[in-house]
């Protein structure tokens, strides 16, 4: 067990240092205004709600599908996927920008709070993970299937809860029914 944890610690450390050496993390840069990543400067205002609803809704697809032309359908799917991916990248850049600006203030603050920082960092990691999952889902299933996927997962989880309930011993189910 100790061997495995040692191995993991060593490998993680080497990978982290590789990132440090190749990606230029911790390299001295201008402190006043860190350079923004490509596209990050454009995310001061997020996309309007109508745009987002449109990208992920099936309304336009049903219209294009109704035309019955394969080329147009393929083009529509490709373009919609690209737009959806750009949108996820924009949101991801927005999250990184918020975190970078927060870190810029927090690193020099003497009254920084450990618990607040951990909560913010956990929130940041969760959102970045969601962006990653969303990107993969858009790449594989396409933006039009996302709502369908979400409904499928919701139905599946409800079914699992129901099945779990049916495995409970009879008195428990009974008492739960009375509660």
């Amino acid at each position, binding site marked *: 067990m100790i061997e495995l944890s040692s191995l993991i610690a060593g490998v993680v450390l080497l990978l982290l240092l590789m990132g440090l050496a190749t990606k230029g993390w911790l390299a*001295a840069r201008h402190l006043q205004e860190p350079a923004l990543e490509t596209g990050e400067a454009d995310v001061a205002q997020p996309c309007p709600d109508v745009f987002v609803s449109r990208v992920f809704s099936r309304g336009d697809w049903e219209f294009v599908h109704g035309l019955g032309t394969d080329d147009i359908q393929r083009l529509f799917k490709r373009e919609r996927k690209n737009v*959806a991916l750009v949108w996820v990248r924009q949101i991801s850049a927005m999250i990184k920008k*918020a975190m970078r600006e927060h*870190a810029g203030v927090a*690193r020099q603050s003497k009254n920084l709070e*450990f618990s607040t920082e951990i909560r913010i960092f956990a929130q940041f990691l969760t959102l970045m993970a969601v962006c990653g999952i969303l990107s993969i889902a858009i790449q594989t299933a396409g933006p039009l299937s996302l709502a369908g996927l979400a409904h499928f997962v919701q139905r599946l989880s409800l079914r699992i809860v129901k099945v779990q309930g049916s495995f409970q011993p009879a008195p428990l189910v009974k008492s739960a029914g009375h509660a």
Partner: protein
Amino acid sequence: MLSQAIWWSCIVLEVLLLIRAVSGRLISRYPVFYGYIFFVFSQSILRSLVYRWGGKLYNPVYWTTEFLGFVMGCWVVLEIYRVALAAYPGTAKMARQVLAFLFALAAAKAIAALWNDPNLVLETTPLQMERALRTVQAIAIVALVTVFAVYSIPFGRNLRGILLGYGLFIGQRVICLTFIPPQGHHFWFYAYSASYAVTLSLWLAYLWSYQPSAVPAGSLELEQDYQRTAAVTRRRLQAAGGYLRKAVRP
């Protein structure tokens, strides 16, 4: 023959590093780091003398100097922390809390292991002990580097080299110690020795001359701003989460 070559290359690299430290006046900037290099240099000479003429003394001398080297290494990590975060009290506080948490966790794990098996200390070989200590050191460095990266702490070339080299050395050593057999000269034995020569070459490249670290421009009015900034950040992140939810619930 190969181990002789590794040993001599390490000695030459250490001497070169110390010469550059004195001629480039780096020694006054990073006294603990160069103290560590001087210690390792003296330790290599002492071990070789004892190996030739000391007979049975070699084993206790080897392990004593090895654990002293570990303590000096921890001091080097503290120097990196001190120099890098001198101008960043917020990140320094965060790093202290993270390290304290990790050391408390390691201490609790050691106490629990001793509680379960009181003979553990007698049964543990020095090699296993070193592996456990180096693992804790590796985890501490991972935590420190993560904190530096999250808060975008700018490092000068010299300090970056010290961190990279020492981290690389500890990472390699932990991996080698996982696979190294207790006896004999195998691949992992040579990899274990050669890892230090690689580290010394890296240090020599990064510490050839003094290059100052970037200093933050002026102090901001932050004391009253932190709570407000944290609240704003959380609101912005929550808003981003709201946008992402729209993708599945348009």
